[in-house]
Structures are given as structure tokens and as C-alpha cells.
């Protein structure tokens, strides 16, 4: 086993460990969020091994940093006041999450089985230059649409906040 393979398995193990930690710490939301950080950062390591360098940085910046911090703020917004769902609703939520998990798993397995052997990535693949040229030539419309989604997020945040204050 060469070194990159060893690294891949190390990162994969950390990803799974973080994911398990996220589920296991259901009573301690902050610890769960920290486990999620482990998952996100280790995923970035796997992206690097795949040669997707920019995706790795964005993974750490957005998912490892911003999104989990947002989770933590949401947790703090509620404080220590635990509002449990009524048992019936809770069972529904659990059933729904199991269903979603099975669907995602099935999709992943389907994608993996019979996955073709890909040729090696070209030189410079996944670097800022290639990503930039691709984003602003072939995918420029999608980029503009992202900014509309972000605008919706800004307005949505304000609407939520104002309702809570009033």
C-alpha cells in the first residue's frame, strides 16, 4: 500500500468517525457539531487526494467553517431550553430520516457499482485557474443564478429575524 492510499483510508476513517460522532452526540449538540467539523475537514483531505484542490479549500471554508458555525448559532439561539417534539411527531421524524438515509445510500451504491475507470486528470486540473475559466465561460449562467439564491438567503434571514424581534 503506497502512502496516498494509506492517507485515503485514514481520511475515510476520520470521515466515518466524525459522522458516527455526530449521530452519537444527539444530546450534546455542540459536540455533535464538532464531530461534523471533523467529517468536513477530512472530506477536504479526500478531495485533495482526488486532485480537486479548489473544492478542498471551499469545503473547509464553507462547510468546515461557515455552515457548522451557523449550526452552532442555531443551537445557541435555543439555549438550554429543550423543546421535545411530541412522541408521535418524533417517531415520524425518525422514520423520515431513516428513509432519507436509505435512499442516499442506495443512490451511492448505484453510482459506485460499475463506475468506469477514469483517465488520469490533466495537468493543472482542479486549480484556481481551471476552475475560474470553467466557471466564467461554460457555467456563467449558473454563477449568476447562485447570486439570486444568495439574495434570497439575505432577505430570508432578515424576515426571520424581524419576526422574532417583533
Amino acid at each position, binding site marked *: 500500500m503506497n502512502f*496516498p492510499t494509506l492517507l485515503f483510508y485514514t481520511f475515510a476513517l476520520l470521515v466515518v468517525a466524525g459522522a458516527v460522532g455526530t449521530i452519537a452526540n444527539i444530546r450534546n449538540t455542540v459536540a455533535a457539531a464538532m464531530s461534523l467539523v471533523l467529517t468536513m475537514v477530512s472530506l477536504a483531505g479526500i478531495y*485533495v*487526494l482526488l*486532485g480537486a484542490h*479548489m473544492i478542498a479549500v*471551499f469545503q473547509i*471554508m*464553507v462547510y468546515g*467553517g*461557515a*455552515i457548522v*458555525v*451557523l449550526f452552532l*448559532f*442555531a443551537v*445557541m*439561539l*435555543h*439555549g*438550554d*431550553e429543550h423543546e421535545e417534539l411530541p412522541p408521535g411527531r418524533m417517531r415520524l421524524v425518525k422514520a423520515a430520516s431513516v428513509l432519507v438515509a436509505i435512499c442516499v445510500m442506495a443512490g451511492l451504491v448505484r453510482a459506485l457499482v460499475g463506475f468506469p475507470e477514469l483517465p488520469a486528470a490533466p495537468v493543472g486540473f482542479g486549480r*484556481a*485557474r481551471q*476552475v*475560474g*475559466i470553467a*466557471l*466564467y*465561460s461554460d457555467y*456563467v449562467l449558473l*454563477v*449568476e443564478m*447562485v*447570486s*439570486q439564491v*444568495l*439574495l434570497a*438567503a*439575505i*432577505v*430570508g*434571514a*432578515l424576515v*426571520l*429575524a*424581524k419576526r*422574532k*424581534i417583533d
Partner: protein
Amino acid sequence: MLTEYTGVLVILAISLVLIAVLLGIHLRVGPRREFPSKQDPFECGERPVTSPRRRIAVKFYVVAILFVVFDVEAIYFYPWGTVFRELGWFGYASILVFTLPLVVGLFYEWMKGGLDW
């Protein structure tokens, strides 16, 4: 190609070892004389009466959402910034179109008082 990352792994390992040594020495060497009033969380001499983890102002949550939004926006700027000479005025126009809604959003937030502390 992956060799450029060797240094990151090495420095991560060294820093973890260093911190473990520092904390390890401290936890071993330091005295330990626990009694209840010393272990109390600091409250200017009073006993804490409520849990400190109270509900926070929603403003902080708004900041977190704005942070996510603008972090994602920044991410679209980085690749553009490195290749904008090749992209020329077309790339410039597309980044303008990209930025405009967000500037409008920021301005809206500002006018609505979402940025006031």
C-alpha cells in the same frame, strides 16, 4: 503533485505533539486542590442562579447567515480574480451581474436595520 502537501501534514503533526506535551506537563505538574466554591463559575462573588446558556439575540444568527452568504460570494471571486485578465470585459460584466444582487441585498439589510447593533 501531492508532495506539496507534505509540509501541511508535518506541521500539523508537530503542532499536535507540541500542544500535547505542553498540556500534558501542565496537567501532571500542576497542583489539584478542588473545593466547591473554587469550582464555581466566576460570577463576581455571587452564586450563579441561572444557566448561562440562555437564548441569544437573533442578531447573531443573522450575522451567521450573512457570513455564509458572503463567504460563498467570496468563493466565486477567488477563481475570477486569478483569471480575469484572460476573461476580459465579458468576465468583468459577469462578475458585476453576480455582485449586483448581493450589493442590493446588503443595502436592503442595511436600510431595514438588520446591520444595526
